[in-house]
Every structure is written in structure tokens, then in C-alpha cells.
């Protein structure tokens, strides 16, 4: 199967989300995948390391999703791809559906693994159920849920070929960027470790112990919906059914009871740790490990224990 993958690049290198999508493309292609990138690339940008053999490099970086869609469309035609892969992160997720329309392809959003019996696995009902999806069109476009497949390094390098095509005018002007955290920590949907806290913290002034634990673990911080709504923490940290859906390797929930809407956003985490004073908190039923105790006492001790590891 001939597979094309769109790989976003930053500072000349493929992003982690891009490498994950490329790993997926390599896995379903049986080793004959092509990548397309926009912007200046440092060598092969690391794309060959996950098994992609050829990179089509468009010289300029593109910010408008309609232009990226036209680029990927042209690259799909050139490479003869029947399947086009994107990362299901914020950028890829905005372009992939456009490409599906352009190619008259069936679109499967947020796949979580390689197809089984021709059907793509994905999560539905905000993580409360799974679905196997078949595609009836000649071509297929898929986006890969961040952190679901992982970056699979196989070693190697890719040949880079300059690729020019008509992408049209940018119709939207992308201006100033405001990072959500001053330290530039990884976006929540891509984070491998997340420390999250809820109303049990009693007020925004108490977040220091949460941040200390996150720092010791090299984790991102998140919060429950009430905490976001009360303005204790920024909205983008809200994980749950109506906030961000995450699937880190480790999720530590501090002072969060675990309402069904919160669980929907986090229950794909590989390991869940719950710290709560209430032994009846529903979150313990979804947890792998739990501590029944006061977060104000447990968190500092936990942070110390983690620091003493290294």
C-alpha cells in the first residue's frame, strides 16, 4: 500500500506528533511510505529514523490549513498514495478533513492503532467506547490520536526531494502566539505525564504543591472543570469530556472526585493514580493506584520521594 504522511516541522526537525504519524504510516505501508513537509528542513529532519524512505519538501512554511491541504493533495497525487496519514493533534486535525474532501476519501479521525481486518480502531463517546471503522472509498485519510501509537524508531535516513506546487493565497492571517505556559512544557494532549488537581486544592493559591510534583515528574499540569470555570486555572488546562482529552502514560489526579465527565477525558491514560480524602470518591474505581489522604500532606511527601529517586 502506498502511504503519504504529512509531517509538521519545527526548527528544521520533525515534531514528535509528526514522527508518530510517520511511524504509523510506515507501519501500515509495510515500509514504502512518503512524507510531505512544508518549510526548511535540516537534513531529513529525523523523518528517515522512523522508516520513511522519501520526503517531498515544499520550501515555504504554511500556516493556513487550506494551503497545507492543497500541498498534501498534490503530494498524494505525485506519490500515488491511496492512504494519507496525519497526526490527530490540533494542526493535523484541521487539515486532514479538508484533504479527505479534496481526495473524495473516507476520513477516519483519531485512530488508535493499525487496521485490524481492514477496520480502523478509534475511540468514540469521549473515550467511553471503541469503534472499528471501515472505509468504502478508494482512498482513505486517517489522523492518529496523539500518544496512541508512539514514535517507533527503526533507524535510517530518507531522501529529500524539493517539491513545488500551487497552494493558492493564504486566506487567514495567523498573528501573535501566546504560549499557555511560560516554560514551554508540552501540550496536554501530547504529554506523557500529567498531574491534575481539582476543588480539593481549595484555592488557586495552593497550586504550588501540584506544580512541585509535576516538576519533579517532568509532567504537565491539568485541572478539573470546576477549577477552570472558577478561574483558578486557565481554561486550556481543563481535561474532561468538554475540555481536553488526554492519554498520558501516567495521570495523577489530586483532589478530584472523578465525575463521569472528567473520566471521559482521562480514562485512556495508561496508569491512573488518585489521591483523595474521600475513600468513596468514584475516581478510585477507575484508578490503578490510590492514596486515601489529604493532598496537602500527601503531595509534598510524594514529591520528595520522587526527587530522592534520581
Amino acid at each position, binding site marked *: 500500500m502506498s502511504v503519504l504522511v504529512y509531517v509538521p516541522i519545527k526548527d528544521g526537525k520533525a515534531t514528535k506528533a509528526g514522527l508518530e504519524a510517520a511511524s504509523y504510516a510506515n507501519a501500515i505501508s509495510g515500509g514504502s511510505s512518503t512524507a510531505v513537509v512544508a518549510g526548511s528542513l535540516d537534513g531529513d529532519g529525523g523523518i528517515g529514523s522512523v522508516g520513511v524512505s522519501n520526503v517531498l519538501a515544499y520550501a515555504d512554511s504554511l500556516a493556513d490549513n487550506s494551503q497545507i491541504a492543497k500541498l498534501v493533495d498534490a503530494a498524494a497525487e505525485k506519490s500515488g498514495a491511496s492512504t494519507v496519514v496525519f497526526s490527530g493533534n490540533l494542526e493535523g486535525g484541521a487539515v486532514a478533513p479538508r484533504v479527505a474532501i479534496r481526495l473524495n476519501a473516507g476520513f477516519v479521525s483519531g485512530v488508535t492503532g493499525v487496521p485490524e481486518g481492514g477496520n480502523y480502531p478509534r475511540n468514540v463517546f469521549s473515550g467511553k467506547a471503541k469503534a472499528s471503522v471501515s472505509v468504502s472509498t478508494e482512498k482513505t485519510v486517517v489522523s492518529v490520536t496523539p500518544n496512541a501509537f508512539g514514535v517507533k524508531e527503526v533507524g535510517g535516513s530518507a531522501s529529500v526531494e524539493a517539491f513545488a506546487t500551487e497552494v493558492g493565497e493564504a486566506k487567514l492571517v495567523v498573528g501573535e502566539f501566546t504560549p499557555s505556559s511560560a516554560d514551554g512544557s508540552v501540550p496536554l494532549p501530547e504529554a506523557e505525564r500529567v498531574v491534575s488537581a481539582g476543588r480539593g486544592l481549595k484555592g488557586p493559591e495552593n497550586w504550588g504543591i501540584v506544580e512541585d510534583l509535576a516538576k519533579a515528574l517532568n509532567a504537565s499540569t491539568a485541572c478539573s472543570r470546576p477549577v477552570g470555570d472558577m478561574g483558578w486555572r486557565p481554561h486550556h488546562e481543563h481535561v474532561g469530556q*468538554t475540555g481536553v482529552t488526554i492519554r498520558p502514560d501516567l495521570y495523577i489526579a489530586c483532589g478530584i472526585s472523578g465525575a463521569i465527565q472528567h473520566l471521559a477525558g482521562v480514562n485512556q491514560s495508561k496508569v491512573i493514580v488518585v489521591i483523595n480524602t474521600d475513600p468513596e470518591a468514584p475516581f478510585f474505581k477507575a484508578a490503578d493506584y490510590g492514596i486515601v489522604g489529604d493532598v496537602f500532606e500527601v503531595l509534598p511527601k510524594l514529591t520528595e520521594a520522587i526527587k530522592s529517586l534520581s
Partner: protein
Amino acid sequence: MALHHYLCIPNRRNTKYTFVPMKMLVCISKSPDTTSRIAFTDGDTSFDESGVQFIVNPYDEWYALVRAIELVEAGGGSVTTITVGDASCDPIIRKALAIGANDAVRINAEPTDSTQVARLIADYASDKGYDIILCGKETINHNSAAVGAMIAECLDMPYVPFATSLNADGGTYNLTCETAGGENKVTVNSSFVLSAAKGMSEQRIPNMRGIMSARTKPLQVVDDSGVSAATKVEKFALPPAKGDCVLVDADHPAELVRLLREEAKII
């Protein structure tokens, strides 16, 4: 209501903004209530709707619809909702009208994927001259986050994904949108499609006047223009049940660290 709620609606006397009436289309989807029990029927090929309460998909309602209504309240214009579905969608459409939409369109089809929904909406909207087409960022049942981008591609319009704020200044639209690791400012000078995320507006509870007037607001039913789906769910499954939670003594968090390292091998 929170102070920032007022601040995000530019005041009419504020010279910074020039209001022009806008014609807006808000895509509304029916989804099961967030607390619904998820179960499947017909050999795990369809969602078991028995006993399920349906709501307007929260992203469509709280963010896309409410912000569209706020802008019309400030500068004039109209908000039309559009839904692809059968007559079982009518109650949630009336809810959207009660919140403040002016009128509603329902495309009478039973869609099975986002491509079908997007093409049907694009077919309808293509000759109506909407200034902004708004969607929620995703539905809470299908989670594809695809319809907005697809409509934009069908109609060759710009698409602003995951918008967290929207203001209009004459024919210029200023937005912020979620992007990897933060927010971008985005400016658009033509009609466009957006998907709305948290931050756009706050949930509104319909008042009695709204509920009464919703009964008589126009709900136009349009025939399916004959678009077929490109994908199909062959089988649904519930995730495997989680094993028992291992409890660790609150006085010895170091034991938790040991388990995470040696048993879960995660740190």
C-alpha cells in the same frame, strides 16, 4: 455573571469596533447527555438509545451558538441553526431556538459519518451567503472534529479551528484559537468557517420567554440532497473493565513511587 463575560462582548459605544449585521449559520448536532450510560444494540453495531436523554452537543451549544447570538445581540443580523438528522432532532433544535437562534433548518437524513454531514450542510449553505458558519469543535459521541474543516473545503472558505474568542470589526474578524502549546491570534477578512472551543462564551439557560417563542419560530425541513457516507462503524465495543485499585498508605507515598517504578514501570 462573571465580569469577563461582559468584557468579551465589545460595548456598542466602544469605537474600537464597527458593527455590521451578520448572517450566521450554526451547525447543531444531537448527542446523548454527558451522563448517559453507553451501551450498544443490533449486535454492537448501533448505539442503544433506550432511556437516553439527548441534548444539543455541548460544544455546538455553549460555544458556537451562544457566541453567534451574542454577536447578533450586539450588532444585528441573524442566527440560523442547521442540523442533519431525522425528526427525533426537533426537540434539541427547539432548545437552540429557545436559547436565542432566529430560525432553524433540518436536513432530513440519517447520516453515518462526518463527510455526509459536511457535504449536506455545504450543499445547503452554498448559495445562502452566510458570513460565518460555526460548529462546535467536536461532538461528544463521534469525536471526529471534522465537519467544520470539511464544510470549509467544500465551500472553498477559510477555516479557523478550535476558536476560543471571536470579535467582528466591520468585515474583519479577529479570533484566538488553540494551537499546540498555546493560542494564536487569527484574522480573517472574508466569510469563513470556525469550530468553537472553550472560552468563546458561557453556557446560557433559556428563559421562559425564549422557550415560549421557540415554539413558533420557523423550523424548515429540507430534503436530503443525496450524499452518501464514506465510512461505517462495523462494530462498537466497551473498553475492558479496570482491575482493582491498589491502595497505598497515605503516610508512605514512597511506596507508591516504588510501585510506579517497579510494578507499573512508568517512572
